[in-house]
């Protein structure tokens, strides 16, 4: 049975799915390579592509509260505080 995708991976997939073609296919390929040791070695030969793949995966990783909160960024708290203030002030 296939393992369900973790939330980080799911978030990244939604982001990649929103990209227009042909970037979408290119990004999927990059992610597939970045997630495998041999793929990572291959990417390491091309600086710009390596940085893009690395950046994409890292973006997903640091969206995860488990990695972001220790760095001082609590997205849920910020969104909740914003919503509360908006309600208080009667803003749209």
């Amino acid at each position: 049975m296939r393992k369900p995708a973790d939330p980080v991976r799911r978030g990244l997939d939604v982001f990649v799915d929103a990209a227009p073609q042909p970037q979408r296919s290119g990004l999927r390929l990059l992610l597939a390579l970045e997630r495998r040791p041999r793929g990572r070695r291959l990417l390491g030969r091309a600086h710009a592509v390596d940085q893009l793949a690395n950046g994409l995966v890292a973006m997903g990783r640091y969206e995860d509260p488990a990695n972001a909160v220790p760095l001082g960024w609590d997205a849920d708290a910020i969104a909740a505080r914003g919503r509360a203030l908006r309600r208080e002030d009667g803003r749209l």
Partner: protein
Amino acid sequence: MSGRGRRREARVLDADVCVIGAGAGGAVAAAELAEGGMRVVVLEQGPRHDADRFSARPLEMLARLYRDGGQTTTLGSPPILLPLGRGLGGTTLVNSGTCFRTPAHVLARWRDEFGLEALADEDALDPCFARVERALSIGEVTPELAGGNAAIARRGAEALGWSHGFLKRNARGCIGSGVCAFGCPTSAKQHVGITYVPRAEAAGAQVIAGADVRRVLVERGQARGVEARLLDGGRLEVRAPAVVVAAGTVHTPLLLARSGLGRDSGQLGQNLALHPATGAFALMDELVDMAKGVPQSFYVDEFAAEGIMFEGVAGPPSYVAMSLPLSGRRHAAAMADYRRLAMFGLMVSDRSRGSVRSLAGRPVIRYDLLAEDVARFRAGLARMEELFRAAGAREVYLPLPHGVAPARARPRDLKLMAFHPLGTARADARPQHGVVDGDLRLHGVRGVHVADGSVVPSSLGVNPQLTIMALATRLAFGLLGRAVPRTEEEAHVLSD
């Protein structure tokens, strides 16, 4: 007749003006026209966003608030990421909120090079700017709200004696959530989706989200309305003797072209300016917490005359992780020090020009950086390093491959983004040189006007939203046949 195969009847609406697009230009024009007593229909391709769903998570919000998930990219050397907002508010929903009036030297160029004496009349534009500034509560960011990231740049600029200041923004009740570009959770940013769009609706305008305009209808040189597709697959026809096209610099030329309009000069889709930009990072000894405060709150304009402008940029860890010009262990080490990272942006007032055309219904954006703009990036990056060093940076991470010095950077070494597409239906008094005239009316057609960044005939060197809104204000009052009120009192007297 059976339902199968039968073409669904188009829903028909009648209006005095149909406005296409609810971004910086369209929303402003729609509100002013509706408040001026016109029957207005606004058609917006994107959705109506609910601020309750703004999560302060960049990855999620990019996919939701941006066209193509924020991954629209130019073709050329180098490829440039061109994120565009989508929905009521357009790009004002996701920009940093920075507001500059059109610089005087740019207006002079519009007069001299494009024959736009009336459009570029500073005195005549003044009430348009003032009116938008009042409507959007535009004011200067305070040092407290600007946060630690701005403090670093300020310290560097002061040490070097470079001209600098706090930026003006359209915000009210801002608490520095740090996610202007990903949906303001407090609705402090006064984007047009929560300011001008509600005003338009309150004045009776019909605002329809999810309406994809296929064609502007013109008969015998006179606007007749527009045809659109709705989300449910239905068709909509708006019959109107005046149409304001405000679909944005990338999509307006495509819409005009498929409507068979605006092509006589050969300029439609040409003259694309972008203000290409990049960002650099510095590792400081102190805690910066760059995302706490207004991300774009401070500027350094010492080199503006050379076409180089520095403006603040910052974001949460996931945004920084994507933007850091590092990989592998160096990336991980820098991210571990996220709280001590500072970031600043560099924007070039470009001389390079690109184009937009349609391929299978999608925009293909072509743009190559001229050698003189590459030189601006080289100079700008060297100065960015100087700025950070003067502020006491322990390390500086420039957006270049490891070991490449700014002076030796090639176009393909640059990691660029752009946020200000302009010029693809540019204004020029001469029909053979521009798509619209000085009143933003399509040359050779009655009743079709353009009110977005596409009419701006040159790079501005500063963020364009206020220019676009002021031009839309001028257009709306022109259509109403009234002068733009110079004061709030005058506006009240006129409306009474």
